[in-house]
């Protein structure tokens, strides 16, 4: 590691705020573009399975008993 | 009887557009009036000092010309789309590329050329040096041609939409930027006593490229809009 301790890594000679903010924003955006389609897919799957269940109708329970 | 030749058909289309515009002269005058009014806004916003006005004049005039071109480009195909004329044009045996070129040519004559011709008047009001006037007119003539052609692409893609007005500016303003850069640079160069030839040559090159490619995209856009 280039830095001696955590504090100097965070501070970076006064540029730390800029550097860390840039990385933080980037991470958030990158996470968003990966997570958004995953969430959409999960929502779609849930919607579609609900639709399939509706079409099959309510299962008749205990008819054999 | 055989089909009319392509140039005859295109000339006829241009003539029809011009007749339509002349019968409703407000449509020609509106962009010019818009131009005049926005020119009046700049001294109000920037202060009346002739020196500072002169230093901004080249860019200002070009931006206003660009905006008034933008505002009219939405209407290039709209009327003909609404009343069904566009369908007939698409079905005509003549290639759409040339019909579109005629349409955009008519638009250029009505907005770009008329604007370029009266622009010296407003340039003097903004204190632009006299030496820069030929460069201003020439750059506006070439540049508005490019803008009409590029604007036609945006108009064709949005003509089928109810609310196309704002959208079309989002689509085509980024494409106007190179024209603005070289157009205003030509005027500024001339105002400072340098030759404006190189910038005008680049504008001419853009014009040629736009003539070759923009009608293709416009024709494709019209087919999509009619189909949607």
């Amino acid at each position, binding site marked *: 590691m280039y830095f001696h301790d955590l504090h100097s890594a965070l501070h970076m000679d006064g540029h730390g705020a800029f550097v860390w903010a840039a990385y933080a924003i980037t991470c958030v955006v990158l996470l968003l573009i990966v997570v958004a389609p995953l969430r959409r897919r999960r929502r779609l799957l849930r919607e579609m399975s609900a639709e399939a269940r509706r079409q099959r109708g309510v299962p008749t329970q205990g008819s054999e008993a | 009887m055989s089909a009319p030749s392509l140039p005859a058909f295109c000339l*006829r289309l241009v003539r029809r557009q011009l007749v*339509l515009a002349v019968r409703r002269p407000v449509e020609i005058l509106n962009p010019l009036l818009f131009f005049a009014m926005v020119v009046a806004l700049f001294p109000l916003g920037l202060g009346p000092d002739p020196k500072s006005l002169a230093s901004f004049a080249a860019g200002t005039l070009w931006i206003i010309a660009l905006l008034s071109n933008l505002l009219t480009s939405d209407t290039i195909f709209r009327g003909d789309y609404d009343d*069904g*004329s566009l369908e007939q044009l698409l*079905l005509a*045996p*003549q290639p759409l590329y040339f019909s579109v070129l005629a349409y955009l040519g008519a638009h250029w004559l009505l907005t770009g050329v008329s604007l370029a011709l009266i622009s010296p008047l407003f340039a003097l009001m903004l204190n632009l040096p006299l030496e820069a006037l030929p460069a201003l007119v020439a750059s506006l003539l070439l540049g508005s041609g490019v803008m009409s052609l590029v604007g036609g692409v945006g108009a064709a893609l949005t003509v089928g939409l109810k609310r196309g007005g704002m959208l079309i500016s989002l689509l085509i303003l980024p494409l106007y930027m190179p024209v603005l850069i070289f157009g205003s640079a030509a005027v500024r160069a001339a105002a400072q006593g340098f030759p404006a030839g190189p910038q005008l040559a680049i504008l001419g090159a853009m014009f040629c490229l736009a003539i070759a490619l923009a009608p293709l995209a416009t024709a494709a856009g019209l087919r999509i809009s009619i189909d949607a």
Partner: protein
Amino acid sequence: MFGGLSFDICPGQLVQIEGANGAGKTSLLRILAGLSRYGFEGRVERHAPLLYLGHQPAVKAMLTPRENLAWHVAGEADFGAAAIDAALARVGLYGYEDVPSHALSAGQHRRVSLARLYLSNSPLWLLDEPFTAIDVDGVAALEERKAAHVAAGGAVVFTSHQPMRGNYNVRRLCLRRGLL
């Protein structure tokens, strides 16, 4: 909207497309005309120039009927002023040639666009609701014109809710729930 359609239209045929609202009459006609090229799967082969008249009459309010009609047929051939005036007279617009179109009624606009039927050389006509806003006499004249075109070896496809009044030999395609 519909599927599994297959038919030929031959010279000498008068075809009426029927169907409820939303059955796809206009869409079918636009596909036949080549205005809709996507959004459907299949093939349309055309072997003859066609004339398509859509819902909108394509009449410019700022032009006179003469100018409008002259522009409508401009792509086809250069008909003289006399032929254009004669065609306008055939649709009952005699004396209206030089009136600005905004002074005319919707039915008269429709007549301007229908005047093309008296000029056109295209063998195949595709007419979308041609009777809209046309009075009884006009309908009869239009039916006659279509019959004459078919008798001369042309073909006409049109959409309409009403059956033709006169006694003509009509082939009817009925679009019902997407089928013929």
